[in-house]
């Protein structure tokens, strides 16, 4: 068997991170194909339930990409996302649920390299962490 290939779900905001991902692609940067990007209008529109649903469905990691603080297209969506993810991760910590599987990163439309680096780093971290244990449980 080859090495474990983690599945990562990415919720990328339309205005910054998704454009950053696009730039990484059009600039022909190399990064692991482990991420499945989902374009959302704003990182602030990503409810914790979506992230949990991805994890419960067997994703090994979830990346939320938003505009840098202060740059949100909708003024404050990323600040709200920052609180929401903080709460989600704290809950996961309290329940011993490997909160490192959930990440939020600020990636602007001009940061193709930052996007590629973020995905590479997350892929190698998840590879090290191993498969999401919930994926083998059927009674969830």
């Amino acid at each position, binding site marked *: 068997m080859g090495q474990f290939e983690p599945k990562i779900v990415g919720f990328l905001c339309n205005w910054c991170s998704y454009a950053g991902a696009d730039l990484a692609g059009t600039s022909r940067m190399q990064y692991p194909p482990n991420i499945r990007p989902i374009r959302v209008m704003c990182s602030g529109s990503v*409810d914790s*339930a979506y992230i949990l*649903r991805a994890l419960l469905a067997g994703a090994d990691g979830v990346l939320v990409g938003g505009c840098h603080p202060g740059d949100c297209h909708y003024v404050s969506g990323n600040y709200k996302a920052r*609180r929401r993810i903080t*709460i989600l991760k*704290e809950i996961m910590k*309290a329940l*011993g649920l490997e909160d490192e599987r959930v990440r939020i990163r600020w990636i602007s439309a001009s940061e193709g390299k930052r996007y590629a680096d973020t995905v590479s780093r997350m892929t190698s971290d998840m590879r090290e962490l191993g498969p999401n244990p919930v994926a083998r449980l059927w*009674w*969830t």
Partner: protein
Amino acid sequence: MDVKGAAMARGVLMRVKNRNLRQSINSLLADLLNKGLLEAVLVPQPVSSKESVVQTLVTEPEKLEGANVLAPVLPVSSAQIVSHITRLGASPKPLGLVMRSCEIRALIELVKLKQASLDNLVTIGIDCLGTYSVRDYADMVSRKEDPTHSLLEGVKEGEEGSYLRPACRVCEHSVPAFGDLTVGFIGLEWEEKFILEAGSQRGEEILAALHLDSSQSFPQREKAISQLTQERTNKRDELFSRTRKEISGWENLSSVFATCINCHNCMTACPLCYCKECFFSSSTFEFEPSKYLQLADRKGILKMPTDTLLFHLGRMNHMAVCCVGCGLCEQACPSNIALLKIFKMVGHQVQGVFKYVPGRSLEEEIPLAVFKEDELEKVGEE
């Protein structure tokens, strides 16, 4: 609103008539109605079988005779009732609410969530030693015991608590910290006297109208309260550390929730789950038959109903920062899932991040409703 902390509050000593605290409180409430200080009061009344109580809105003083604000049972949080009453607008006339600490704290959260209005409401907090589950309460009554009496007596003899609901055994808030008025009996000879404290300007006006001088302080009562709070806080911390061990990790946690039948009773009973349209009751979770087969095929086996752990974790993400620890979720669960200890432990930890205490004040903003630009700067940076 001008609110003093409970520990600082001063009050007036009231005499219990005929060694009957329940009736004495009722006649105080009747007095408030008779004098026109209140137009109506919300109080629990035993149903005819006496096996439980229901919340009632009383305008006729005589109808208060049967009320039992001490009955140690909580079928519904009155915060939810107040939200129903004031959802379409503030009460036009002064309405008194007799509430336990957990109910007042939930009401404060609902007001901040814009689900209730405090205008023209007079909160009358009442000391609470805890409540029995609806089932245990009914059992005690059918065995011809008086639950109210046994709880108060048990406390006097120092053996309270072993049959209380798990939420009450670890409750740090026996005394309502927020109330225009507070009816207190902890630390007093409850067959002889009780106290009436004013916690706000409005409360003081009411006491003045009753010609009561609320300037006494009760060091003995404060000592008894802090002792009870300390005991229960210790029990709470023990419960938290036990719970962390028991439920930690996906495997342990998911087996706790595995028997959930997705009835959403916990959500209905929760005073803070206020959404009219819940994501988890939406058609998002209604699948085509082929989708069920596809889901089953992923692992070769699919638990039905699906997405129950997601429901609980999602609900927790939405309300744990506001959780007041009333434990009504657990009381409502037909599958006996020990929800309280998990929600309370998680709530405590999350609230700690924002130094937020649900129900502490109207000014403190709910962490999920606001943000600051200069905070959590490490989040999002590697």
